[in-house]
C-alpha cells in the first residue's frame, strides 16, 4: 500500500517500447535529454510533466515521425523512424489537437485510418460508427468538423485512433483538453476498453489526477525531457484515497509544482493543473 517509487526494470521480451539514452535537439534547443523508459505489452503508461517538458516530442520519437539525435528507440522490435512501415496497422495516435480533416464528416474522419489500412469501405464505415457510438457521439456522425464542439472533435479523434484496432495507442493530452466531467467519464471508459482488449497505451498528460486515475505506471518528466520519477499505481492504491494523496504529493514535489494545494482526494482536486 505504501506508494514506493519503483525503478522499473523489464526483460527484453515483454518490452513493447524501449527507449535508451535518447536525446533530441531542435536546432540548439535540447528538448529530450538522455531519456530512458520502457513500456510493456498490455500496460497503460502515463508520461506526466509540465507543458513544454517535451512529452509530445517523446511521443513523436516513439511514433517515428522524428528521429533521435542519440540513443535508440525500439517499438515492437523495430526502429520506428528508420523502419517506418514496420508499425503499419499496429499503432494509432490521438494528438493534442484533434487534427480532423475539415472536409470530412465525423464518421468519415473516424474511418480514415481503416481506409488507409485498405479495409473495405463498408467495413471501415461499420467500425467507425461503432467507435463513434462508444465515445458517445451518436447523432453527430454526419456533421462536419466545424459543426462539432471541441470535446466532440477530441472524441472523434479518439474514435479514429481506436477504430484501427491498434496494438499500441498514443494519446497526447486527449483528456486534459476536455471539461472535468467529460474527461473523467471518457478516461474511465477508455481505460476499461483498453484493458478489455489488452492493448498497450501511452498517454501524455500534465494533470496528475489523469495519470493516477488510469495508469499502471507513471513516468514523471523534467524539462528537458528526462525521467525524474517512475512509479507504479496498483488497483489497491487507486481505491485508497490516502495512498493516492501521498502519490500525488510525491509527484507534485518531483515536478517542483506547489504542493500546498495538492489535493488529498484526487477526485476533489480535478481542476488542479500543472500548466
Amino acid at each position: 500500500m505504501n506508494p514506493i517509487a519503483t525503478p522499473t526494470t523489464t526483460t527484453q521480451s515483454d518490452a513493447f517500447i524501449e527507449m535508451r539514452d535518447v536525446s533530441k535537439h531542435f536546432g540548439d534547443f535540447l528538448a529530450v535529454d538522455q531519456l530512458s523508459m520502457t513500456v510493456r505489452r498490455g500496460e497503460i503508461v502515463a508520461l506526466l510533466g509540465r507543458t513544454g517538458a517535451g512529452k509530445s516530442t517523446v511521443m513523436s520519437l516513439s511514433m517515428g515521425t522524428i528521429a533521435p539525435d542519440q540513443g535508440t528507440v525500439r517499438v515492437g522490435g523495430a526502429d520506428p523512424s528508420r523502419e517506418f512501415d514496420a508499425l503499419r496497422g499496429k499503432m494509432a495516435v490521438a494528438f493534442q489537437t484533434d487534427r480532423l480533416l475539415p472536409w470530412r464528416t465525423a464518421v468519415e474522419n473516424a474511418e480514415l485510418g481503416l481506409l488507409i489500412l485498405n479495409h473495405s469501405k463498408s467495413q471501415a464505415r461499420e467500425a467507425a460508427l461503432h467507435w463513434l457510438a462508444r465515445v458517445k457521439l451518436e447523432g453527430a456522425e454526419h456533421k462536419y468538423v466545424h459543426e462539432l464542439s471541441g470535446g466532440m472533435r477530441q472524441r472523434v479523434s479518439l474514435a479514429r485512433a481506436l477504430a484501427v484496432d491498434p496494438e499500441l495507442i498514443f494519446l497526447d493530452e486527449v483528456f486534459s483538453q476536455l471539461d472535468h466531467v467529460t474527461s473523467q467519464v471518457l478516461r474511465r471508459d477508455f481505460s476499461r476498453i483498453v484493458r478489455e482488449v489488452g492493448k498497450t497505451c501511452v498517454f501524455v498528460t500534465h494533470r496528475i489526477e489523469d495519470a493516477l486515475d488510469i495508469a499502471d505506471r507513471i513516468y514523471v518528466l523534467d524539462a528537458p525531457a528526462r525521467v525524474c520519477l517512475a512509479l507504479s499505481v496498483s488497483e489497491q492504491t487507486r481505491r485508497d484515497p490516502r495512498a493516492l494523496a501521498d502519490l500525488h504529493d510525491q509527484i507534485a514535489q518531483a515536478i517542483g509544482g506547489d504542493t500546498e494545494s495538492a489535493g488529498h482526494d484526487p477526485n476533489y482536486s480535478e481542476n488542479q493543473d500543472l500548466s
Partner: protein
Amino acid sequence: MSQPARTASSVTPSRLGARAAARPAARPGRRRDLTALCVVSVLLILAMEVASRFVPPFIMPSPLVVGQAVLELLTSDWHHVSVTLLRLAAAVGFSMLLGVLIGLLMGTSRRLGPYLNSLVIIDTGIPALSWMLVAVFWFKDPEARIFFILTVILLPFYALNVYEGVRSMPKEWVDMMESFRPSRWQLMRYLVIPHIVQYVFMTTKSVIGYAIRMVIFAELVASAVGIGSRMSLAQSTFRIDYVLAWTFLLVVLNLVLQSLLNLVERHVLKWRAEAKVR
C-alpha cells in the same frame, strides 16, 4: 495590344496567393450585392443615354440601339458565341489539369519541384503579348494558336496557387496521416488533393474574367470565327453599336460564369465554415 500584359500583372500570382491566405473570406449579403449591381447598371445605362443625346451616334449610340444590336447578335451570331465558349472551356480545363499537376509536383517532389518552380516563375514574367506574337509564328492552325496562348497564360496561376496550397497544409495533418503509414498515393488522395480543391476554385474565380479577355484578344489576332473576330469586324465596318453590344454580352458572360462558379463552389466546399467579418 499593351492591355493584356498590363492586365496580366494586375492579377499577379502573389496577389492570388495572398487572397488564398485570407480565406475563408467574408461574404456580405448576396441580396445587397445584387441590388448594388442593378443600381450601378441602371446608372451606367442612364449615363449612356444622356451622352448619346449630345454626341453623334458613331461615338455613343443610345442604349436602345445597343439593346437592339444585342438581340440581333443573339439570333445571328450564336455560333460565334459557342465557339468562343468552347475555346475558353478547353483552355481553362486543360490549364487547370496541367497546372494542378505541376503545382502538386512543385509542392511534393523535392527533386523536380525547384526546376518546375523556376520554369513557372519565368513563364509569369513573359508578357501575354509575346506569347500571342510567338504563337502566330509557331502555329498555323488558329485553334492551336488560341489554345496555346490561353494555356501558357493561365497555367502558371493554377500551378503557383496549388503550390501555395500544398505549402500551407498544416504539418500536423501530415503527421497525423503518417501515423497510419499511408502510401504516397493515399497521402495525395486523402489529404493533399482535397485540401487544394479550394485553391483551384479560388484560382478559377479570379482568373475567369482575365481568361475571357484573353480569348477575345487571341481571336482578334488568330481567328476568323469567335467573338473576338466579330468585334474586329464590327470595328472595321464602323458598327459601334455591335462593338458595345458584344462588350455588354461579355460582361454578362463574366457575371454568369462567376455566379455559376460560386454556386458549384458552395456545393463542393460546403464543409467550410463561412467566417462572417463585420
